[in-house]
């Protein structure tokens, strides 16, 4: 059921929630967290739909904070809060309150949200778009244990990654990082199957998709080898190619759903790697609410060190000078397909000295 409240306050909203629960006959509910969605009117519907789907796995109170644009000085002068309270079938599992903020109250959204948080339960804030530069310092972000942003929606994702790295506070996370979990687990599984040392990596995917950078940084940070970021037409990530001491390992996904894993000396294998929708990403994000140290380490590795094999290979600083010289030749020999030869700076260093 739905209750509309115009020009209201948080305490009236709280009353409406109790009233709504009574009316549908389920006064006790086992919600495990409060999810605050901060968004604009345009993205509100899709974001809430994803959150509702995710709430099947994580029953939650969803507070949608919509900051309305005021078009006239009169609007701006008058602060107003409208709310739409949804319980029961309209609210996924749990409860939903859509809060529409007008005028001055926009700058004091936390005063509206604070009284509506579930007692004791964790709070997650999610900005589907327009995330603040420093989420932990944001007035709504301060209320939360977990702050979810999405660099994929940014105007310039790569720069945004750098900004996120600078502002990182434990509890920050990025849906672009969540997107690559299946890739990461598959690449890790591929390395489980062989006993070889990786010497260099190339991560290939569409331009302006920060997931590619994050995957590349994770690999570079964990493997301590040069990792190059290649560009392809997409969709999303398209390939990870690893040069190893026992031949190349490739994970190729051309169509966004079924990938092929090729390991030297083993037959090609099909691997399901479907691109997941936002609801699944949010559901994964809510599964653990402790700081994601692996994300932090990967993010802090630094986008600028990608592709720059010399400095990326911390353990082998000797590469620093030779990388530029040998870069183009090395790229030519390791990646034959056209997509990656159109790649950004070809700076993969020479392979480890052949035995």
């Amino acid at each position, binding site marked *: 059921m739905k209750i509309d409240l115009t020009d209201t306050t948080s305490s009236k909203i709280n009353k409406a929630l109790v009233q709504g629960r009574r009316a549908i006959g389920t006064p*006790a*509910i*086992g*919600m*495990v967290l409060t999810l605050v969605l901060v968004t604009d009117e345009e993205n509100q519907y899709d974001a809430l739909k994803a959150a509702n789907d995710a709430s*099947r*796995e*994580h*029953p939650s109170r969803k507070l949608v904070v919509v900051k309305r644009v005021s078009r006239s000085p009169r609007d701006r002068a008058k602060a107003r809060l409208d709310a739409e309270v949804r319980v029961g079938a309209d609210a996924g*599992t749990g409860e939903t309150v859509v809060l529409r903020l007008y005028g001055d109250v926009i700058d004091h959204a936390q005063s509206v949200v604070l009284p509506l948080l579930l007692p004791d339960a964790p709070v997650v804030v999610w900005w589907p778009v327009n995330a603040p530069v420093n989420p932990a310092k944001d007035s709504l972000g301060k209320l939360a244990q977990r702050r979810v942003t999405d660099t994929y929606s940014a105007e310039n994702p790569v720069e945004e990654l750098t900004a996120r790295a600078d502002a990182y506070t434990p509890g920050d996370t990025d849906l672009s990082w*969540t997107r690559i*979990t*299946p890739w*990461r*687990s*598959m*690449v*890790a*599984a*591929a*390395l*489980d*199957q*062989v*006993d070889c040392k*990786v010497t260099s990596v190339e991560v290939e995917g569409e331009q302006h998709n920060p997931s590619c950078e994050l995957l590349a940084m994770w*690999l570079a940070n*964990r*493997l*301590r080898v040069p990792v190059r970021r290649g560009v392809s037409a997409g969709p999303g990530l398209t390939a990870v190619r690893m040069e190893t001491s026992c031949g190349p390992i490739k994970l190729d996904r051309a169509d966004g*759903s*079924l990938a092929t*894993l090729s*390991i030297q000396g*083993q*037959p090609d*294998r*099909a*691997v*399901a*790697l*479907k691109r997941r929708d936002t609801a699944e990403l949010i559901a*994964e994000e809510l599964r*653990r609410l*402790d700081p*994601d*140290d*692996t994300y932090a380490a990967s993010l802090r590795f630094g986008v600028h060190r990608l592709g720059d094999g010399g400095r990326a290979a911390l353990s082998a600083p000797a590469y620093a000078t030779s990388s530029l010289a040998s870069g183009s030749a090395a790229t030519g020999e390791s990646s034959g397909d056209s997509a990656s030869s159109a790649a950004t700076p070809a700076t993969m260093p020479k392979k480890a000295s052949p035995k």
Partner: protein
Amino acid sequence: MTATHGANPLRDAADRRLPRIAGPSGLVIFGVTGDLSRKKLMPAVYDLANRGLLPPGFSLIGFARREWQDEDFAKEVHDAVKEHARTPFREEVWQQLVQGMRFVQGVFDDDDAFENLKATIAELDKAQGTGGNFAFYLSVPPKFFPQVVQQLKKHGLADQKEGSWRRAVIEKPFGHDLDSAIELNKVVHEVFPSNEVFRIDHYLGKETVQNILALRFANTLFEPIWNRSYVDHVQITMAEDIGIGGRAGYYDGIGAARDVIQNHLLQLLALTAMEEPASFDADALAAEKTKVLGAVKLPRDLGAHTVRGQYAEGWQGGEQAVGYLQEEGIDPRSKTDTYAAVKLEIDNRRWAGVPFYLRTGKRLGRRVTEIAVVFQRAPHSPFDHTATEELGQNALVIRVQPDEGVTMRFGSKVPGTSMEVRDVSMDFAYGESFTESSPEAYERLILDVLLGDSNLFPRVEEVELSWKILDPIEHYWDKHGKPAQYESGTWGPVEADEMLARDGRSWRRP
């Protein structure tokens, strides 16, 4: 797990998003055309693949008498998955799985078939990179176990080569008494080392059962009162609303106690009553469970504290049901129990004097499995008698299935001017606080087999101890009387109610 795992620089304990993916491996199912395989095992394999938990190249070999080609087998799996899988069907996941599907046709005494199986495994090692790691799932009646494991041994299929593993997975019943269980264990252990034998008790794969450990040992709220000073008694119930269905051949002569109490209920008892393990690794858990099962004491007078019954005709949930003795394929003079209730005590400092009542039955009121810890009454009540007339005993109920969750029952004042205290329930439902669909028990268990994680599998000592508890009861029943009759659709024979009434207690209606 293979040795390469530790060396993989991409694996990091702090990286908790990465799931535990099984290493390169395959699963061989004997009796693949059976019900269990179609309804549980195949869908579980698909669901695991769909959740990205199976390694690339995971292979599934079916072994059965049916004259199938690989394609027929794949189609059978496809249909089973479509019908029974928990997660939605996705073509790309299916494409990944189907590459590693093979079928080997044969019967268990057919040497050629096992040579063929061996060749298939070798071929998969090459084609799919399974690395020689195979688990053999014996989804066949126990009388075939010896034959199958001997064949596996004879054809070198059970040989563990350097860096790879071969495992055996067996389903209950693990024998029908202590002697047969020991015999069975001997047969299996002759071929597979004991740490490579996985006994499936699918109850232990259920989220709620694993939650017993979390509830008890991750909280401070319950453990202080989890003892004889506060607990009055414990009731463990597993009720089914169905009859024996088409399983007359299997069920007659076995009965409810052997079928359910020996494994499921005694495992639940062990988890409820055991001391805190030093850690959650398999050895520590098994040590505590073995200890508590070893401390179980039977009542002196088995006649007064055990009851067995047979369902008679009646109405169950709006349908007319025939009695057990009228079921097709059942000897009208059969003494097999379809209902069994026993009182056990645990002889240790924590539980001395606290009875554990275990009951199970077919054609009972509804399908439910639960553990109810019933607490003692408050030693003194400042309220007068009329105020607390409707107050029962506090209880903590762990609902194992269906509607998984935990209920706490306690007294609360009824709103109004007079003081009146009545029982109320506080409810935690899994489906409400966590996921809409928790993984099926078989998913978890198959994954654990592939990972070599034996936490959730009863060990040989536990199985033997359980038989030691049950055997004297079965012997007593063999010699004395016959099963009481109870009307289908009710909560068991009156004798069971009388059994608790003698102790001044009564059964919960679950």
